[in-house]
């Protein structure tokens, strides 16, 4: 998938969460909602997961920022028989879709996966690159702001 080899740490991270009982698929996306890796590699609708996952967490962040404080880092959504989790760490997004078989321990595995992603980023990039990355989705920088 995406030209990444088996030893890719992000692929290992997404595989780790995807192998949990009840997980139907998982995606790691970048801050623009583009798929970096997914599991299983032939995951149907991986792009849709990534794009909508970003929409969900951005919308939640925008609204909750007006209510409480900005900086949404985790959205968990349960329907009759599905459980969707969207979580942000540094500049990456983890989207996990599970069915009814998944139990609450999935949260632990998701947290560990986020740690794996964060550790990988910290290992790979110098501190100054990620130190200003928030742990959640950054607020949109407007064109106006970027040119001031």
């Amino acid at each position, binding site marked *: 998938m995406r030209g990444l080899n088996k030893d890719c740490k992000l692929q290992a991270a997404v595989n780790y969460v995807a192998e949990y009982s009840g997980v139907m698929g998982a995606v790691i996306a970048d801050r623009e909602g583009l798929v970096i890796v997914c599991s299983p590699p032939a995951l149907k609708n991986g792009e849709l997961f990534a794009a*909508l996952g970003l929409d*969900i967490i951005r919308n939640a962040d925008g*609204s*909750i920022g007006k209510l409480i404080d900005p900086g949404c880092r985790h959205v968990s*959504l349960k329907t009759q028989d599905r459980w969707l989790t969207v979580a942000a760490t540094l500049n990456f997004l983890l989207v996990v879709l599970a069915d009814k078989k998944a*139990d609450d321990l999935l949260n632990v595995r998701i947290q560990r996966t986020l740690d794996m992603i964060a550790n990988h980023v910290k290992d790979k990039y110098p501190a100054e690159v990620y130190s200003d990355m928030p742990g*959640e989705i950054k607020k949109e920088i407007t064109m106006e702001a970027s040119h001031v």
Partner: protein
Amino acid sequence: MIDTTELDDRIAKCEKILAADNNSQIFAALADAYRKKGEIELAREICQEGLENHPNYSSARVVLAKICISEGDYVAAKEELDKAIKSSGRSRAVDVLEAEIYIRLGRLTEAKVILDRLYLSDPDDELVLNLISMIGDEKPPRRAASEKDRQEAQKRSYSLSDVVSLLKIVPRVMGVIAVSQNGLVLEGRFDGAFSKEEFGALSKGIYDLADSGANKLNIGTSNEILIETHTSKLWIFNKQKYLLIIFARDDVSMGSLKLKVENLLSKADISIGE
């Protein structure tokens, strides 16, 4: 009846603590949760591994004794319990467990001595009464009125206002609000500067946006949405006629809050005017 959701929640929390500190004594609680869940081998493995670092941790010895009982090895159970007593002395829970082990070993006289003492100090203890019935020494039921009280309490139902008020007093919960599907505030209690209407409208907006995302993924209508920031949590339950929204600090106990919500909503008798 054992609530597996609660157990899973407890296991998740214990594992998180152990992942952060592998020398933590939380291993005993983790092993006990797995034991209750029926995963005996895993429970034993966790407990024995933890006891290597904390050999004098009596609670873990008690858990190991219970694991031995589950495996049918009552002699080993007694040995582990003796180690716990030697390390931290006796407690009511230890006495109950010892009585059970004596019954399993067929040492009924010794069991009866302990059970008589426990019965005298608390005649309503169901665990003790069950063990007494196992040795065929039925005691008269004492407080018929308390059973009636319990039945009355179980029959009690809650209004939406009761549910909101009772959830609001859970530690670290800062606000609870019920909003109709058209965005009108039905009930609300919270700390904070903003108005009920503002809180209700924005929370309904959050739910609608998240739910529309779920619909695009064809996973159905959201029953529950949890949003976490670094400092707070917003938990929204879709109860068909209304949305129940709980706003809490980040360090709220999600396990106990979840149990409280489930318990109250199961007893809620809520009718919303059209």
